């Protein structure tokens, strides 16, 4: 397995990092990490919803099952992986 996979485990519980502010925009939202000073574009409303609510679910996979169409699951997994790497979401 690659190291990228090690960063993000969809069977583990995740949540929005409390150091992150999210502001809704027409394209989705902007997420700003106050600690790393990084600005991240969330380019769909569905992704914004997943990022905000992932903490409500037992694990990331369950959040995707509930919030995104099953045929797009792979796409969202990749997005969450990237957001985990940039610490927008964090393990809980």
């Amino acid at each position: 397995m690659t190291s990228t996979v090690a960063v993000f485990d969809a069977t583990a519980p995740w949540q929005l990092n409390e150091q992150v502010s999210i502001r809704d925009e027409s394209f989705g939202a902007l997420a700003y990490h106050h600690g790393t000073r990084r600005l991240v574009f969330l380019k769909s409303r569905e992704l914004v919803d997943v990022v905000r609510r992932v903490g409500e679910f037992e694990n990331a996979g369950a959040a995707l099952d509930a919030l995104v169409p099953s045929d797009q699951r792979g796409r969202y997994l990749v997005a969450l992986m990237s957001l985990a790497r940039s610490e927008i979401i964090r393990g809980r």
Partner: protein
Amino acid sequence: MGVDISLRDRFGAWSRGADLSHLGADLRLQPRLHALPVVVRRRDPNELTTSEAKALIDEIAAMQIFYINIGGGEPMMRRDFFELIEHAVDQHVGVKFSTNGTRIDEAAALRLASIDYLDIQISIDGVDAATSDRIRGAGSYDQARRAMDQPQGGRLRSVQDLGRDDERVH
């Protein structure tokens, strides 16, 4: 109270559907940085009062601006400087500000180090006093270096940006 023209009115056009992540704020703070404190300059008549500045920060927070850049003049000349930046950071509005460093003594450095979401740029205009002081005035380089060399509670790290004429303390 409050600023005469709503910030939302002034910047609304920028923020509509755009990625307005931060604002530059010039709170009209005291002297030009070339002027070292030997010379006492007049206050700018447009300088905001504490409550006006706080109202401005409240509007910035309401607009969900992620951080503000504060310039000047020399922002640390304001007596309410810490009160204002803490007011911003308390509302999750990050602060970045530029200073000539003259007001950063040990106590100020420790207080700055205790504030989250704060980036400070201490300005110099050359790699040595001879170069920098030509632009910023006699003694300015040493004062900036003194500020940079303050004990910083282990929290601040210094970044030298050699590609440009400034040096940053985070």
